[in-house]
């Protein structure tokens, strides 16, 4: 599945060491997100990508604990970000 930032989402952020405050321009909500979730957002800010590409990105950028499957983690994070209306799937 391909993903992109929601149209109109500017990703106003206050980065910190382990967590980042993200303001959602579309909902008006403020979220406290983990660094790994924010790295996905920033990757999608550069342009749309599919799940496999994003899983590869996480695997290369983060030292994931043994036993964590990048694809499964990516799907979980993408689902959470989509639920917050920060990203959306691109219809195929």
């Amino acid at each position, binding site marked *: 599945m391909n993903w992109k930032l929601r149209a109109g989402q*500017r990703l*106003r952020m*206050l*980065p*910190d*060491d*382990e*967590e*980042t*405050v993200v*303001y959602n*321009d579309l909902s*008006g909500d*403020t979220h*406290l997100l983990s660094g790994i979730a924010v790295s996905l957002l920033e990757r999608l800010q550069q342009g749309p990508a599919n799940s496999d590409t994003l899983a590869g990105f996480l695997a290369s950028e983060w030292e994931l604990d043994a036993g964590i499957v990048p694809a499964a983690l990516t799907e979980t994070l993408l689902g959470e970000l989509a639920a917050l209306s920060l990203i959306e799937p691109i219809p195929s």
Partner: protein
Amino acid sequence: MKISALPDAELRQRLMADGVYFRTGTFVAHLRTRLEQVAASFGLLYSDYPLLEGPYADFHVELAPPRGLRRWLRPQVDFIADGHAPFAALPAGQAFPMFEWGLNWCVSSQAQHYLIIHAAVVERNGHAAILPAPPGSGKSTLCAALIHHGWRLLSDELTLIRIDDAALVPLPRPVSLKNASIDVIKRYVPHATFSPSVTDTIKGTVAQMKAPSESIECADQVAAPGWIIFPRYEADAALSLTPVPRSRAFMRVADNAFNYTRLGAAGFEALKGVVAHSDCYDLRYSVLDEAIAAFDRLASQAGKR
């Protein structure tokens, strides 16, 4: 010209007739009242505020007995802002605290060009310490002690953040003290001026402490953000100052804001401007001297950051 320039009799006469216009921070307020208790405490605590000529004011307020039979059954007082009474009447003896609470309400409900946080804010060496805290945390007690030990009062209750540049805008008004903290501060700052204590309010016994005249004189000087400190008084607790991640501090301050959601992205950017330039801490204290020393250490290190 300050309010203290008016002889007592003239102040009372003006309050009863056309009212008194005065500056508090960036706002002009207009007070009219025939109530002696309000006039006496106003004359005591607002003597150093600039006296202005009308008729312009941001807030036109009046303290007066309610109309109708209630005034004869049990003396009560209404807070009237721009001709309307937004709150239920209170017992007449609570008129001056009601004036203070009502003026806070005027600012927090109308000054939407600021991000407004429920927090005390004090300044030293150009940097401000914001103290967001729920009731009972010792915020006002700490604020009252700090402003008589080298720190400037910007506000005891409402932190005003300028949207454009995240500067902290002064609103120096009397410090509202409650219950045991009244005697604590009377002992700690014996030279300060206090309004008479009023018992049996919704907040218990309350009294207001006059803002230092230096803070009132500097009410046009904004401060840069320096620290966000979440104070918590705990009896017999050892002093502790624990760093709080900025992201967590942001969320906690936003929870204490009156209009963060209403301001939308502008509110986020203003608060981001404050938090990004602040060191954030949880402060636990039981001894005022120790707490003030901790604040002074932070201020002395400000130039080294």
